[in-house]
C-alpha cells in the first residue's frame, strides 16, 4: 500500500517568522493532474500592513550596512538556494507543468541571478554615481541611496526566477522588500521563505506573501509607507491602479514587460539599470578651500 504523503500548508514569511494569514484563508495548489499538492495562505490587507511595518523596521540597518556585507549576505542566500535545488525543481515541475530539466534550468538561473546581484552591492555606486565638475570651488558628487520599502509584484512564471530577479534588484541597493509571489504558481515563493530564514538575511528585509494579486495590489498602490513598486507584466488595469495609487505619496512605480526567455538574460534583468529605479540619486556639495 502506498504511503499517505504529508501535505503541507505553507505559511507567509513576515519579519523573519512564518505566520498563517490573519484572515484564516488558504488556497489549494494542484498539480497537472488536478490533485492537491499543498496549501498556501491567501494573504490579506492586514498581512500586507504587517509586512510593510516589518520591512520599514528593517530598512535603516539593511541600508546602513556596508555594500560588502550586504553582498555576502545575498551570496549566502544564493548558497542556501543552491542547497535546495531539487526541492524547488520538483515544485516548479509540478506547478508549472514543465519537464524536470526545464525546472532545474530555472532554479540554476535563480541561484546565478542572486550571485549576480550579490556582486552589485558594492559596485553600483561606482557605475551610476559620479563626481561632478561644477564651475566653482566645490567638491560635488552624486551617489545612489536606497528608497525604502519596495513591493514586488512577481510574474506568474517563471515563478522562482521571476521572484528572485525582482527582489534582487532593490535588495542589492539596500531596500527592504515585500514580494507578492506568483499569482498562478505560488509554491516556489512559499518555499523561498524557508531559504530566507535559514540564510543570514535579517528579519524584515525580505517578506513574502502569497494569494491573488488583484486583492492586494490596490492596497499596495495607496500604502503611504511603500516607497516604490516593481511589477512584471502587469495588465493595463493593474498598471492604472498602481500609477493612480502612486500619487498618494509619490510612490515610484516601475513596470516591466518581459517574455519567458528574457528572464534568463542577466543583461536584461540584472544590470545596474534594473537597480537604478530603486535608488534616489543624492548630490552633495562641499566648498573646497584652505
Amino acid at each position, binding site marked *: 500500500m502506498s504511503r499517505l504523503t504529508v501535505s503541507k500548508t505553507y505559511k507567509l514569511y513576515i519579519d523573519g517568522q512564518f505566520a498563517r494569514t490573519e484572515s484564516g484563508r488558504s488556497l489549494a495548489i494542484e498539480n497537472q493532474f488536478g490533485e492537491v499538492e499543498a496549501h498556501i495562505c491567501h494573504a490579506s490587507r492586514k498581512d500586507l500592513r504587517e509586512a510593510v511595518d516589518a520591512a520599514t523596521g528593517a530598512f535603516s540597518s539593511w541600508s546602513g550596512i556596508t555594500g560588502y556585507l550586504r553582498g555576502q549576505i545575498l551570496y549566502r542566500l544564493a548558497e542556501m538556494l543552491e542547497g535546495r535545488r531539487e526541492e524547488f525543481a520538483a515544485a516548479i515541475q509540478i506547478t508549472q507543468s514543465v519537464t524536470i530539466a526545464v525546472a532545474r534550468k530555472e532554479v540554476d538561473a535563480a541561484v546565478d541571478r542572486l550571485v549576480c546581484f550579490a556582486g552589485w552591492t558594492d559596485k553600483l555606486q561606482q557605475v551610476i554615481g*559620479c563626481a561632478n565638475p561644477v564651475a566653482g570651488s*566645490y567638491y560635488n558628487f552624486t551617489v545612489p541611496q536606497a528608497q525604502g520599502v519596495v513591493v514586488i509584484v512577481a510574474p506568474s512564471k517563471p515563478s522562482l526566477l521571476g521572484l528572485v530577479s525582482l527582489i534582487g534588484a532593490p535588495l542589492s541597493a539596500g531596500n527592504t522588500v515585500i514580494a507578492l509571489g506568483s499569482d498562478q504558481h505560488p509554491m516556489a515563493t512559499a518555499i523561498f521563505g524557508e531559504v530566507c530564514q535559514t540564510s543570514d538575511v535579517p528579519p524584515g528585509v525580505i517578506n513574502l506573501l502569497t494569494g491573488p494579486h488583484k486583492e492586494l495590489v490596490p492596497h499596495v498602490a495607496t500604502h503611504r509607507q511603500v516607497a516604490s513598486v516593481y511589477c512584471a507584466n502587469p495588465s*493595463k488595469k493593474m498598471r492604472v491602479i498602481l500609477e493612480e495609487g502612486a500619487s498618494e505619496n*509619490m510612490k515610484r512605480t516601475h513596470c516591466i514587460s518581459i517574455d519567458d526567455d528574457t528572464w534568463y538574460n542577466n543583461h536584461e534583468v540584472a544590470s545596474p*539599470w534594473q537597480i537604478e529605479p530603486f535608488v534616489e*540619486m543624492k548630490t552633495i556639495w562641499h*566648498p573646497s578651500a584652505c
Partner: protein
Amino acid sequence: MTIKTDQIGGWEYSPALETTQIAIEPKNKLFINGKFVSPKSRSWFSTTNPSTQEKIADIASAGRADINTAVLAAKKALPKWSKLAGSVRAKYLYRIARRIQERSRELAILETMDGGKPIKESRDVDLPLAAQHFFYYAGWADKLEYAFPGVEAKPVGVCAQIIPWNFPLLMAAWKLAPALACGNTCVLKPAETTSLTALRLAEILQEVGLPPGVVNIVTGAGDTGHHLVQHKSVQKVAFTGSTEVGKLLLRQTAGSGKKLTLELGGKSANIIFADAAIDQAVEGIVSGIYFNQGHVCCAGSRLFVEESILDEVVQKLSYRLKSLRVGDPLDKNTDLGAINSKAQLETIERYIRQGTSEGAQLHEVDTNPLPANGYWCNPCFFTDVQPSHTIAREEIFGPVLSVMTFRTPKEAIARANNSPYGLAAGIWTDKGSKIFEIAKQLDAGVIWCNSYNKFDAASPFGGFKESGFGREGGLQGLRPYVNFFNKSGRKM
C-alpha cells in the same frame, strides 16, 4: 507677538537703476513650427509687472487646437531631429548658449520686469546658468553612447514640458537643453505670469536656425497645460511646480505609458551645529531662504539650530535682516524684489498670520520704505516654532523662515527627515566626519554642506519622496529624456 527691528544705521543708498530700455511687442504670439502665430483660440491674457502692477503686454492663450498644432509640429520634426548626427545637434545648442550670453542683459531685464526678481539675481544667477545649461548639454549630444554603459540610449519622442514662474528662463533651459541634446522634440509651456523670456528664447531659436517644430512654445494657464499633457502624441511629460499639481499629473497619465518626471515642492531643512562657522552659516541662512524672495522650491525654509547657539544665531540673523534691501527689482542694490503675483502675496500673508495665530513669534524688519504699488513682502522669520505648526510643515514659497532647535545630531536628522518632502538640505559644521555622516542620513536629493542654494549645469537636481522624481542637470539629467534598448534592439 511681533518683534520689529530698525534698519542698520539708517544708511542711505543712491538708486542704481538698470535703465536699458527693452522693446516689448504689445501682443506676444505662440511659437509653433518655427513661427510666431496668433492663437486659434483668439484668446489673450495680460502679463503685469509685479513691482508696479502695470500691464506689460498681452500674451496668447493657447487652446486645445493650438496645442494640437504644436504637438503635431513637434511630432513631424522628430524623425529628422532625432536622426541628426549628435555633433550637429550639439552645434545648434552651442549656438543657443552663445546667443543667450550675448542677449543676456536684455533677457535679465525682461525677467526682472515680468517676474519681479532683483536684477542682480537675474543678471548673475538666472542668465549665466541658463546659458551654461545649453553649453553643458550641447557637449552631451554626440557623447550619449558613453553616458550609459551596456545599453543604447535613444530619444523618448515628443516632450511636454511645463515650467514654473520662479526661474522662468532658467527652467526653460533646464527642460529644453537635455531634451534636445538627446534628440527629442519639445512643446514648452511657461507659467502664465512669466511668459516673456521664453518667447524671447523662441526668437533666439529662430536666429540660430533651429529646424521648425523642434521646439514649440505655447503660453497659457492651467488649462493649456492640461491639454498638452493629455495629448496622445506626447510621450514624455516633465513638470516643475507644486506637489498638488504633480500628483494630479500622476493620476492623469496613469496607464498611458507616458514617461514622467516631476520636480515639485519642498520644505528643506538647514541645520546649524554649534561647531559651525556661525557668521558664514548666517549668510547661508539668508541665501537659503531670502534668495529670489523665497520663491525657490529648495528654499531652506526650516532652520534647525543647535540649542546652545540659538540666541547667537537669532541675534546675528536679526542684525543681518536689517541690511537686506527690499524694493525696485531693477535697482542693482535690491536684495529682495517683488512677490511674483497678488495671489502668491496673499498666500504668503496668510501663512504669516497663521504662524502668529498658532503661537510662533514673528521677527521682521518693517522700516524698508516699500513702493506704493506692487506686491511686496519684507523678509521675516519665526521663533518658538513647533514641528506641528503649519509654517513648519507646508511650503510657503516666500521669504518666511521657521526657526527650530535640536540637541543631538540624531535629533537633527530625525526632525529634518520628518517631512513628506525631500528636495534639499543644508548642513553647517566644521567637522568633516560629522558633515558627511549627516549628509548620508538626510533624505534629500541635494545636500549643501557649509553652503546653500548653489546650482550648476553639471550638478543633478531633484527630490526624494513627495518632492518628485527624476533629476535635472548633470549626467543623470539625461536619463529622463532617453529610453534604453539592449544590444539586440529590444526596449528595456
